[in-house]
């Protein structure tokens, strides 16, 4: 995208943030013939929450899923451009998707715990990646992950119960605990609160804020209030384009683009 404003906003805003954790350069995504994402370039930093906002169908979820190659599961999807994780292209042919997804975890829109016990849900990732050497180490990882996800106190006495028996909000925190159990560097969240009630949502938002110190978090959200509450960076997508990217406070109080302004003031979307 030939967009000098965007380049300057990125350059001007984030000089304090250090090197980018993820750096996307002119990424386009096609579904068959249809272009869903048009040359998006963006830098994402550790210890910040980056929110992707925009109307339905703007491509924000599609773009999020390119960051850990979840689009690979859709046969017709094709990705152009480069996405660098710590400077290495994740779409290069030698990239091991299993390794990538261990480093870039994901939480989905609808809580999707496996129909296994709470313990096995958390232990799933450490087991397939061979992270724990012993049972006691695995126990420790499970406890620590549940504690970080703020779920330990609620479930410590019933780790053998099925994960699907928890409430929606607890299930989503279980999924977050599952994602952090493999000690990722980046956590992608695809509208993690859209299936939850306001109280559970507030709980997840608190959690995101607590987790921000350790990971780079990218959250796709429909709710502009949520983006304003939890994120420090906001990227506004529209029709497959990245329209504007900057500090959340700037985007919401002083957008540079007419389209951004129209969207956040509720003109459309």
């Amino acid at each position: 995208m030939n967009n000098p404003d965007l380049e300057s906003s990125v350059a001007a805003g984030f000089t304090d943030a250090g090197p980018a954790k993820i750096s996307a350069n002119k990424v386009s995504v096609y579904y068959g013939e249809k272009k869903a994402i048009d040359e998006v370039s963006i830098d994402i930093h550790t210890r910040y929450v980056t929110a992707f906002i925009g109307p339905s169908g703007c491509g924000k979820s599609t773009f999020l899923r390119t960051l850990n190659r979840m689009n690979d599961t859709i046969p017709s999807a094709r990705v152009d451009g480069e996405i660098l994780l710590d400077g290495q292209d994740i779409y290069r042919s030698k990239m091991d998707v299993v390794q990538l997804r261990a480093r870039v975890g994901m939480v989905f829109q609808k809580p999707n715990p496996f129909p296994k016990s709470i313990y096995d849900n958390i232990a799933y990732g450490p087991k397939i990646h061979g992270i724990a050497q012993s049972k006691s180490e695995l126990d420790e990882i499970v406890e620590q992950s549940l504690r970080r996800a703020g779920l330990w106190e609620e479930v410590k006495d019933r780790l053998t119960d099925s994960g699907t028996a928890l409430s929606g909000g607890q299930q989503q925190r279980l999924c977050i605990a599952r994602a952090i159990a493999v000690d990722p560097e980046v956590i992608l969240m695809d509208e993690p609160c859209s299936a939850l009630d306001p109280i559970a949502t507030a709980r997840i938002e608190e959690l995101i804020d607590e987790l921000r110190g350790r990971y780079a978090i990218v959250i796709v959200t429909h709710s502009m209030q949520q983006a304003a509450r939890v994120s420090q960076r906001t990227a506004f997508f529209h029709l497959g384009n990245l329209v504007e990217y900057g500090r959340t406070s700037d985007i919401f109080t002083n957008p540079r683009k007419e389209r951004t302004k129209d969207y956040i003031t509720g003109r459309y979307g």
Partner: protein
Amino acid sequence: MSPAIFVLLAIGLGLVGWLAARSRAWAFASSGEGRTRLHSLPSYHGWYVALWAFVPAIVFVAIWNVVSPQLVMQSLLADPAAAQLPDFGINRDTVLSEALAVARGSAQAVFNPLAAPLVEPAAAAMHRYGIIGIVVTLLIGFTGGVLAFLRLKPDFTARTRVERAVMLILLLASLVAILTTFGIVASLLFETIRFFGMVNPIDFLFGTHWSPDPMRDPAYANGADYGALPLFWGTIYIGAIIAMIVAIPLGLMSAIFLTQYANPTFRKWMKPILEILAGVPTVVYGYFAALTVAPFIRDVAKSLGIASASSESAIAAGLVMGVMIIPFVSSMADDSIAAVPSAMRDGSLAMGATKSETIRKVLVPAALPGIVAGVMLAVSRAIGETMIVVMAAGAAANLTANPFASMTTVTYQIVAMLTGEGSFDHPATLSAFALGMVLFVVTLGLNFIALRVVKRYREAYE
């Protein structure tokens, strides 16, 4: 009088009622104060009257069909010519049925001279009751139709009434299947009880020697010859063990391939082809088992030094049966794997699991209830299977774990006992019913478990 005439009459009445009522409803709609708004469409009025004309008439026809032959018989016996008949026994029945057959026109002439004078009164009685039947049918149908017709008004709720009738008809249809099942159970039950009057159930269920002799005097029937354990073992060994060792892995793997790896076009073609396997008549599988598989297995076993290998073997029947029920397993497994929410699969992949780890650790466990249900259905199909074992497993009731030995199953023995020379009060023949009862109870139990499992699995995702 042929029953077809009665049925046609009832249908005719119904048709007339339908046309009359519909045109009356049209008349309501178009006549009088501007446009009267009908509560129901004219065709509902038509159906309402048609049902009232048809249903009572057809119910009468059904009853009349049972009653009128007895009335004919009564008036025939009241005839003076009937005094010549022998008092009772087979002879009397033959004469009477011969006379009736000639009177009906289904036989040309009488064979027994005693029947000749009875032909005339039989024909007369049939004619008389035939006329009475037709008149009453017409009367009932007509009365029903007219009474219904008189109730028609513009605001008559014909629609709701017809809907109720439709529900009743559907209920009856579903009852037929259930009642048939009860009928089957009842018919099995009585013969089974008779059998257990002659042979001790304990001997039957737990005895290990099976050699019923239908030619032997029933008075000397020995419980020791009716030990069905070798049959139960043969059934389970062939149907639930050997066949399942073939069908479960192959069925499951083909389901996994079709749902997770095959491209959509391939799946679109492959799935129906696999399901066709289930439609091949079992007798064809039987040929294959008896003529190709069984000799091949015998030769292989012989070359491996297993001298006891028989040309009819449990393993030949079991292998072919296993292939036959692959579609049962794969189709249910396919459906239940495909029904696992894709969020589950994405969740696992996003954790960095590979495709096969995802299948092994998430998809198959999540789909397990459906897979188990498919296996249960396949087992109950396999243990009820007859043709393949008749052709390939042999008739010897061996209680052995040697898969190369000839074995026999419950279904095979049912066929053997019922098609023999034995009469129906001999325990050898009656044992078929007891075997059938055991089979029925076992398959019913398996299906029941399978349905319960499927139900639990549905609750999990809805």
